[in-house]
C-alpha cells in the first residue's frame, strides 16, 4: 500500500461561541487521501466538511477556533498543524490549492483574470513578464476558455459563472499542486455547466496526477468522479469507503437516507423518505407507495396565461437604450390542485414569469386570466383583493423574512394588511394553528427568523402565505437553497398542503429531478422562450427537443457512472 498524500488523524476542532460555551465542529475525524485519487467529503450544512478543508489549509479563524493538540494533519509525511505561518503560506497555492463555491466573489473584480493568474505564478514560481503571460494563456487554454489570448485581458464580470469557475481552476492548478481542494465548486452553477466543470476537474486530475479533495452536500454529484467517499454528519464520519461500495451498498442509515431523500427522475413515491424514516426503519415500505401525476382535460383551469412578454429596458449611452427580452410569448394553463413545473437554466426567464404573474414586475404584453378577469390589465388597487389569492415563496429563506419582525409578526402581517381576523388575539390564534400545520413549535411565534435554520424559515414563509388561503402558490426555487434531507421535508409539506387545500402550484426550479417529482405538467424554458411543454411523465421519458434532452443528460446520476 502506498503512503497517503494527506492523512487526517483524529482531527478535533472547537469553536468558542462566548465566554462559557463552545461548539465542537469536528469530533475526531480521520481519513486519508492517496496520491492520484479523488476523495469526496459529503455532508449537509453543519456537518463540518468545510471546517475540515479550512483546517487543512490552516485558514481557521484564530480568534475562536482551536484545534485539539492530539490532532494530526499529515501532508507528505509532515504535520501541517505544526507549520509556521510562512511555511503554510508557501504551501498554499503551490502544493495545496483550493477552489471555492462562489467564483464571482473569489475573484477580485478590479483586476483582469490574466493579472490574477500571473500573480499566482509570480508568487510561487517566480515567473514574470512575458513568460508569466504565456503560461497564463496556456492555463486558460487548458481549462477550456475559448479565445484565451483575448479573454486573458477581460475582467471577471465580463465572463459567465462557468467561465469564472474555470479561471479559478486555472489559478488553482497554475503551480501544479499535489492536492486540489474543491469546496462545493459547482453548487452555484447550472446543471449543464456543472457537468462540464466536473468533467474538467476529473480530466485535470488524471492529466496532472494530482489528488482532489471534493467537498459537496450533494451525494449524487460525486458519484461520477470520486474514488473514495467520506460521509459526514454533525462533525463525525458516518461512513467511508470506495465510492462504488458506498453507492451500491450503503451501510449507514444516514448514507442511505442521503441517497434516497433526493427525488429521482424514474420514481415518484407518495412521500419522500426523510432521515427520520431511515433511522426508524420506515423507509422501505414508503418507497413502494407511488403517486400518479398528470392532468386531465376535465380539470378546471385556475389561471390561464396567454402570450406573456416581459422586456427589460436599460439605458445605453446618452440617447440609446437596449431592450432585453426576458420572457417571449409564454402561454400556459394551470389547473386546479395541480402543479406546473417550470425548468430552465439561469437567465431562462422562469423567475420573471412568476414575478410578472404576481405583478411584482409589469408585463410588457400578454394576458393572465384568473377568476374570469385579466389580472395583468388591473390597476394596483383593483388587484389588491386578488393579491392574496396568488402567493409566492421565494428562493432564499434567509432574505425573504423581515429580520426585525418576530415570526408572530411575520405571520400576522398579511392578516393585518387584508383585515383577516378581527383582533390581535384572533390573529395570534390563527398563527399558532398555522405554525402547527407547517410543523413548527408554538415557541417559534416569539422568536426572530435568524434563530431558525433554512428549512424552518421556508416553513415560516409557507405559513405566511397560507394565512391568506391562496388558490395559487408560486414556488420560486423554494427548495434550491436547502440541504437534500431538509428539501425532502419541505417538498413533503408542500405536497401535504396541496392534498389538503387543493392548492395549485407553479413550481419553478433549475433542478429537474425535483420538478419531475412535484409536477403534473412541465414547461422547459430557455432564453425566455418555451422550448417544450407537456405532461411531466411523457416529457421526461421522451423529450422531443434537443435542449430538453441536453438538460436531462446533465442530471448527476450518482450511481450511474459506477453501475
Amino acid at each position, binding site marked *: 500500500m502506498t503512503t497517503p498524500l494527506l492523512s487526517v488523524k483524529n482531527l478535533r476542532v472547537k469553536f468558542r461561541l462566548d465566554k462559557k460555551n463552545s461548539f465542537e465542529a469536528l469530533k475526531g475525524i480521520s481519513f486519508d487521501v492517496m496520491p492520484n485519487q479523488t476523495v469526496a467529503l459529503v455532508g449537509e450544512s453543519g456537518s463540518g466538511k468545510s471546517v475540515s478543508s479550512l483546517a487543512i489549509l490552516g485558514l481557521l479563524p484564530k480568534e475562536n477556533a482551536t484545534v485539539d493538540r492530539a490532532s494530526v494533519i499529515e501532508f507528505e509525511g509532515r504535520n501541517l498543524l505544526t507549520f509556521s505561518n510562512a511555511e503554510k503560506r508557501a504551501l498554499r497555492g503551490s502544493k495545496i490549492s483550493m477552489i471555492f463555491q462562489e467564483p464571482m466573489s473569489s475573484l477580485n473584480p478590479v483586476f483582469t483574470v490574466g493579472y490574477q493568474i500571473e500573480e499566482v505564478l509570480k508568487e510561487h514560481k517566480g515567473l514574470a513578464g512575458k513568460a508569466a503571460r504565456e503560461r497564463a494563456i496556456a492555463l486558460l487554454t487548458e481549462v477550456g476558455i475559448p479565445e484565451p489570448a483575448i479573454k486573458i485581458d477581460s475582467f471577471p464580470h465580463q465572463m459567465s459563472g462557468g467561465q469564472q469557475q474555470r479561471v479559478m481552476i486555472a489559478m488553482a492548478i497554475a503551480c501544479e499542486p499535489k492536492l486540489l481542494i474543491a469546496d462545493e465548486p459547482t453548487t452555484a452553477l447550472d446543471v449543464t455547466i456543472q457537468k462540464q466543470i466536473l468533467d474538467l476537474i476529473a480530466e485535470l486530475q488524471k492529466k496532472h496526477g494530482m489528488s482532489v479533495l471534493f467537498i459537496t452536500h450533494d451525494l449524487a454529484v460525486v458519484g461520477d468522479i470520486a474514488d473514495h467517499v467520506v460521509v459526514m454528519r454533525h462533525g463525525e464520519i458516518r461512513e467511508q469507503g470506495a465510492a462504488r461500495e458506498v453507492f451500491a451498498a450503503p451501510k449507514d442509515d444516514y448514507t442511505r437516507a442521503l441517497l434516497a431523500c433526493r427525488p429521482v427522475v424514474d420514481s415518484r413515491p407518495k412521500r419522500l423518505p426523510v432521515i427520520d424514516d431511515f433511522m426508524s426503519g420506515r423507509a422501505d415500505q414508503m418507497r413502494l407507495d407511488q403517486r400518479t401525476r398528470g392532468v386531465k382535460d376535465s380539470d378546471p383551469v385556475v389561471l390561464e396565461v396567454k402570450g406573456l412578454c416581459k422586456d427589460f429596458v436599460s439605458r445605453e449611452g446618452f440617447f440609446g437604450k437596449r431592450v432585453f427580452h426576458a420572457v417571449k410569448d409564454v402561454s400556459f394553463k394551470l389547473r386546479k390542485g395541480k402543479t406546473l413545473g417550470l425548468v430552465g437554466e439561469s437567465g431562462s426567464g422562469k423567475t420573471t414569469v412568476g414575478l410578472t404573474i*404576481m405583478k*411584482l414586475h409589469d408585463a410588457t404584453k400578454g394576458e393572465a386570466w384568473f377568476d374570469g378577469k385579466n389580472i395583468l390589465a388591473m390597476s394596483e388597487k383593483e388587484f*389588491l383583493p386578488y*393579491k*392574496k389569492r396568488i*402567493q*409566492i415563496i*421565494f*428562493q*432564499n429563506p434567509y*432574505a*425573504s*423574512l*423581515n*429580520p*426585525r*419582525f*418576530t415570526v408572530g409578526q411575520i405571520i400576522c*402581517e*398579511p392578516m393585518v*394588511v*387584508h383585515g383577516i381576523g378581527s383582533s390581535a388575539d384572533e390573529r395570534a390564534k390563527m398563527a399558532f394553528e398555522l405554525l402547527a400545520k407547517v410543523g413548527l413549535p408554538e*415557541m417559534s411565534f*416569539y*422568536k*426572530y427568523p435568524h*434563530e431558525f435554520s433554512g428549512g424552518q424559515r421556508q416553513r415560516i*414563509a409557507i405559513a*405566511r*402565505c397560507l394565512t*391568506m388561503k391562496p388558490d395559487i402558490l408560486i414556488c420560486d426555487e423554494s427548495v434550491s437553497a436547502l440541504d437534500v434531507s431538509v428539501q425532502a421535508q419541505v417538498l413533503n409539506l408542500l405536497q401535504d398542503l396541496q392534498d389538503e387545500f387543493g392548492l395549485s402550484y407553479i413550481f419553478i426550479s433549475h433542478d429537474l429531478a425535483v420538478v419531475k417529482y412535484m409536477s403534473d405538467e412541465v414547461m422547459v424554458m430557455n432564453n425566455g422562450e418555451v422550448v417544450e411543454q407537456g405532461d411531466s411523465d411523457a416529457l421526461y421519458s421522451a423529450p422531443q427537443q434537443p435542449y430538453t434532452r441536453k438538460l436531462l443528460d446533465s442530471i448527476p446520476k450518482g450511481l450511474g457512472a459506477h453501475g
Partner: protein
Amino acid sequence: MTTAAMNAAAASAPARSPGLWSLAWKRLLGDRIAIVSMVVVILFLLLSLASFVGLVAKDWNREVAINYAPPTLFKDSHKPAADLKAGAKDGGPAVDSGAAKAEVVNDRDPLRDVIIELKGQLGQATGEVDSGIKVVDPLADVMAELRKQLGRTGDGAVAQADEKRAEHLPFGADKWGRDVLKKVIQGSETSILVGFAAAIVATLLGTVLGAFAGYFGGKTDDALNWFYSIFSSIPYILLVLAIAAVLKQKGIVTVVLILGLTGWTSIFRLVRAEYLKHKARDYVRAANAIGASNMRRMFVHIFPNISHVVLVQLSLHVVLFIKSEVILSFLGFGVPVDTVSWGSMLNEAQNELILGYWWQLVAATAFMAVLVTAFSLFTDALRDALDPKLK
C-alpha cells in the same frame, strides 16, 4: 430527557427572544468606555433638565460677586480683580452701579429689559474700563429719575448688594459679577436643548426625504436629489445667514430651525442609500406580495431594519449641532443676548482674555469638551453595539 423534564426546560426558558435593541443594550453594557461616556452624558442631561425646571442656576443672572471675581483656586494670583473690587466698593464707575441696581431688582424692575438692551449696546465699551478713568454713564441720571417716579430708590439695594458680593467664586465671575458656574450650567441647558432639538428636526427631515427618494426612485428620487445637490452646494455660513435673515427673529427656535434645515443632507444621503438597498430585498418583495401598501412597506417593514443607522446619525448630529450652536452663538447668529450659551460665553471671553480673565473661557470650553467627547465616544460605542459586524 423525559417529556416532563423537557416541558420544564421549555417553561423555564425565556418566552421571548431578545430583539435587536435588547441585544445592543447588552453589548453596550459590556463596553467600559460606553458606560463611562453614558454616565457623563446622563449627568449632563440631568444637569440641564434640573436647570430647565429651575432647580439649579435659576438665578444665573444675579450679580453675586465682584466684577471678574477670580476662581477660588486662583484668588491670590489675580491682582487685577482686586483693583476692580476697590473700584466697585467706592462707588465705582457709574455704569456698574446702574447695572447692579438693575440686576438686584431683577424680576420686579419694569426697566429691566431696557437696561439689558442698553447694556448690550454699551457693555463692550464700558466693560474694559479701568478704575482709574472715570466714565460717566450718560443714562445714570435718566434712570435715577425714572426710578424715583416709580417710587423706588435703588440706593439701599445697591448698598446691600455691595456688602454681600463675594470676592471669589469656585469658577470665578464675569464682567458683572455673575457666577460663571451658574452661567455655564445655564449654557449647557441651552446648548443641549438646541443640539437635541436640531438633531431631531434634521433626522426627521433627512429620514423622511431619504426614505421617499430611495424607496420610490425615478422622478421622486431625481427631484429630491436635485434639491439635495442645490442645498449642499451653497456654502454653509451663507445658508445660515440666509435662513437667519428669512426667519428675522433671534431665539432658540430660530437656531434649532437653522441647524435642522441645514443639517439634514448627510442623513438624507445615508437613508436614501439604505432604502435603495433594502427595497430590492426579498422580504420587501414578500411584503409587496402579501399586499402591504407602499407606506406600510416603507415605514413598517423597512424602517425597523435601518433604524439603527438613523439612531447613530441622530447621536452624531447632536454632537455636531452642539458644536455648531457654539460657533453660531460665538459669531453672533445664535441665541439672543438675554440667553446664555457656551457660544455667547466664548464670545464674551474674547474681550476678557486680553485682560487676563480666562475663567469664563475655560469653564465654557471644559464643559463643552467633556460633553462632546463623551457623546462622541458614546456614539461610537452605540454604532458598534448596533452593528457588531463592523468591529
